[in-house]
């Protein structure tokens, strides 16, 4: 069936076309030309503490859900939370499968199983979640990102897996 394959979806071009059709001003995508910053991996995964930051609007039952309007707060979700207590809210992606199985946007079960098997040294005490699709890059840069970086250091996290939607 390889002849039926298509290249990856051109989300940027399709979003621009959609905004134009809707009569909106052109969406300004984040671009970062040049060489990105780089931290060396000090220890292999099996001797590291792994954290996760996911932007799919995930929260635990009992936590306040995210708003859908430039919400720059985050939630800490203990990594021993029951999978059945996890929820997702968002405006920008189809939540049907996330509501059936949160692991499609928040891979808590595979990560627990890999940690149990020793492939990961240990999981951080909490994973962090926030909203994606925040229009204000300034607020992400000045509020959300520094707060998350601080929490990762407070929790002595060695490596972070980033899971957008």
């Amino acid at each position: 069936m390889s002849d039926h394959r298509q290249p990856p979806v051109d989300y940027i071009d399709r979003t621009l076309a959609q905004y134009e059709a809707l009569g909106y001003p052109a969406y300004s995508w984040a671009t970062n030309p040049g060489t990105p910053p780089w931290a060396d991996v000090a220890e292999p995964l099996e001797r590291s503490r792994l954290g996760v930051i996911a932007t799919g609007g995930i929260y635990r039952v009992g936590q306040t859900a995210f708003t859908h309007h430039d919400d720059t707060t985050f939630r800490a979700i203990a990594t021993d939370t029951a999978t059945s207590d996890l929820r997702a809210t968002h405006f920008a992606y189809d939540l049907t499968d996330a509501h059936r199985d949160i692991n499609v946007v928040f891979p808590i079960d595979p990560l627990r199983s890999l940690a149990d098997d020793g492939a990961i040294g240990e999981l951080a005490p909490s994973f962090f979640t926030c909203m994606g699709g925040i229009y204000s890059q300034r607020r992400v840069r000045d509020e959300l990102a520094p707060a998350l970086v601080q929490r990762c250091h407070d929790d002595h996290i060695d490596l972070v897996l980033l899971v957008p939607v």
Partner: protein
Amino acid sequence: MGLIARQLEESGIPTVTMTCARDITEAVNPPRSVFLDFPLGHTTGRAHDPVLGRRIIEGALAAFADADHPGWMSDQSIHWADDDSWKDSVMRPVASGTTDIPGSDDERSPRRDTPQYQSIDDASAAEKTHGDEQCLVCKGVDY
């Protein structure tokens, strides 16, 4: 997510960014990224397929060892379906001309600035938690 990746790396913590949107991630240009050619909303797998989910996460985590330069990106080479016809309908412009009001053809949900719970029970649970001694919001360690 690109801003978060960059600030983490600048602070000394290595990151791997998973993505189903190759062009957006190439523009954002994170230090290490792993592309999975799945529809949005499935960054880490398919519902109720734990074997695939584990394979996808193993593939992503391998980037911590395999990536050898800033801007490195790998492709998981896992397909969503037997063919790629799901891509045909992704974000195609809506039919124009039905109205002249900007945004009225927008099928996305409105951007409400109050908490948006998955269910009414979740709203009650959050309300119950808030204010009691277990409340992490009140303890200042959570929202």
